């Protein structure tokens, strides 16, 4: 596998259950999944269905109960150890005692890459945080924090990007703007991207493919290709796909109404 090319991701018989014999909870039923190299795939499903579990298993942050994950022939651990993988977390996970600049630079340090202040500042400008380099996370809005987190993900120039509801804690307006601005940053960089989200429109707007999971234990109930030109804008075509995904989501759920 060429080091700089985006790798495909292969999940074989992947499952995760928690607890012991008596009180066993299946978070993820065995799934077979393949994500093509360089593609952006959105994973949608109802709250608590195991989306994040799937992502964590792919990142190697959690150990599968059965099955395996191969990323371009390597294990997730090997990928992580050569800093070819970045994760964006729901809560941004910025360290409060570091500035924006410091948080982004930390990723290079953790990835054992040489410091690169110029790239750090360029990325900060790119995500629209110029002028906030020396602010701490507490001084930033939710949207600004997520921008900083995305910048941190990109500073190590990863081949695999795992986004765990990165805009989940951001208001709808900001979210729409981030959806519009940020994907351009990694699309075209040659990155295999997985995006976990519970927003159908976000999934359609950002990805090449949407996978719909059922409520826990998660199964794949739909696998929808999104053939929309980029840059994307809302319109009839997008609305139709959104309706498609929403339909699949509704059918995956049991007949009783889901609590919010």
């Amino acid at each position, binding site marked *: 596998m060429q080091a700089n090319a985006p790798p495909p991701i292969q999940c074989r018989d992947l499952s995760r259950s928690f607890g012991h014999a008596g009180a066993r909870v299946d978070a993820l039923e065995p799934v077979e999944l393949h994500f093509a190299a360089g593609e952006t795939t959105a994973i949608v499903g109802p709250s608590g269905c195991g989306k994040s579990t799937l992502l964590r298993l792919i*990142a190697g942050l959690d150990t599968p109960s059965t099955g395996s994950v191969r990323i371009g022939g390597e294990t997730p651990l090997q990928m*992580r*150890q050569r800093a070819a993988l970045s994760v964006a*977390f729901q809560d941004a*996970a910025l*360290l409060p005692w570091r500035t924006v600049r410091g948080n982004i630079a*930390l990723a290079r340090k*953790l990835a054992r890459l040489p410091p690169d202040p110029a790239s750090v500042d360029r990325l900060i400008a790119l995500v629209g945080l110029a002028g906030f380099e020396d602010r701490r996370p507490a001084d930033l809005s939710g949207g600004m924090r997520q921008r900083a987190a995305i910048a941190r993900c990109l500073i190590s120039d990863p081949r695999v990007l795992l986004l765990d509801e990165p805009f989940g804690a951001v208001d709808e307006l900001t979210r729409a703007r981030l959806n519009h601005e940020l994907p351009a940053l990694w699309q075209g960089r040659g990155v295999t991207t997985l995006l976990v989200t519970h927003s159908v429109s976000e999934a359609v707007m950002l990805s090449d493919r949407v996978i719909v999971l059922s409520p826990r234990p998660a199964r794949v109930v739909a696998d929808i290709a999104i053939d929309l030109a980029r840059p994307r804008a809302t319109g009839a075509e997008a609305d139709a796909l959104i309706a498609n995904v929403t339909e699949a989501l509704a059918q995956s759920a049991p007949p009783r109404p889901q609590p919010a």
Partner: protein
Amino acid sequence: MTIALHQLRRRGADRFYPVLSALVALLMWELLARVFAQTYLIAGPVEISRYLWDHAGLVARAAGITTFAAAIGFVLGNAVAIALAVAAVLLPSLARLISALALVVFCLPLVATGPILRVIWGPGLGPQITLAALAVYYTTFLPLMVGLRAAPPSWFDLVRSYGRGRFSALVEVRAMASLPYLFAGLQIAAPAAFLGAMFGEFTGAERGMGVLTIRAMRSLDVAGTWALASTAAAISMLAYAGLGRLSRALNNGPPPLILAPVLEGERRARWRALLHPILVTLILLAIWWLSMEAANLSPFFAKRPADVWAFLITAPEAAAHRATLGAALLETLVLALPGYLLGLALGLGLAIVLVLAPKLARGVMPVAIALRAIPIVITAPLIVVALGRGPAGTITIVALMIFFPSLVACYQGLARTPRQVLDLFDSYAASPLRRMASAQFPAMLPAFFAAARMAVPAAILAATTAEWLATGRGIGGLMALTASTSGYKMLWSAVVVLAAVAVAGYVVVAQIERAVLRIYGAEQLTR
């Protein structure tokens, strides 16, 4: 503590309250001193100032040497605490063992460890430094254990997502995340180090605050005794305030909940739960025996585990020994327990009153912090002299030792009630009392129990110190007596029993804590 000072500082406009309350306190103090001038009990601020003026050089030299020993002990003890906590975090399988060993060592009574340290170190500052270190390491270790784990899981995931391990997590996440906790611990440790150094001087020294205090108390030098107490308190408060300032300079937020309960190991199998105390006991006995053999300590005074076993269990007079020890222990516990409960209740009660009457808090909290910094070596005899040598004096000393930390912890805990929860109560126009009962009180429980756990060894220390220095009764009196009459088998037995009682008390409080927090839902309270 710092949170309270912090809030005061924020409302910088009305610094008026602390100044006023300090003035009122000084005035009342002077009045009391004048009223009781003939009893040789109290010296007022005027007399104290005069003494300090006349003996400036003497007191400065003594304060210098004691502060020096306390500072070295402070640094060493905290270094050990940090090392232990880091080891416990890096080697999670050893964490419980390390915590248990640290607790037991902390529970060893100073009355007994002091002379042993003097024999080991010989003349000089050795025992002063060691006792200062012993006095501080646990109050740093415990909050640090919490602080090193007080980070959201995603921060650790972040580190792991780049393939880095425990060490990177320690350096990049835990170290900084624990700083506010570390400083909260260091602040508590500062007065404790001074106390430890003074105790060390009692084992034989030619200079220092402890030496001067003994001298002054024996020669009816009331002004001197109070001047020394005030100086010791002032130094402790300076260290306390300085560390708070340093903490803020390092841009720490206000210290988070101190000593949140470490609810780990729930999944432990039953047999391990049973095995653990046995293992800890065996390791302790091994350390005890090996360290004495290694230091080649004379069996005349350095009794080994087998000596204590023989003395209490197998010797022909073992039953009589147990009876003596048991009676002394009972005498101590009968006073320590009410003092413990009273101190906790007063701390809790005053914290609630202060939250309901915030203006009062601005005046009272600084005074409470100031009083907390006065070493027990000095307060114990004064209180006993003032309240008499009956149960009231000892109970008051124990209560006082526990009252201040409990007050501060409870006050901070109450202040940590989530804003949204308070807004919810406000939106229903709930009365302050209702809000207290339903929102603030439950939110405070973890802090309260943390204080209650730490208060167990503190209560025993206070009771035995009062007995040793003032009343001569109980197990503290027994230890002092046996130390002077070479009854080392009894002394070591008393040490073992006392440490066991302290650990047992700690475990009991931890169990109650677990049960109560389970009902109140710890998960929503501790974050």
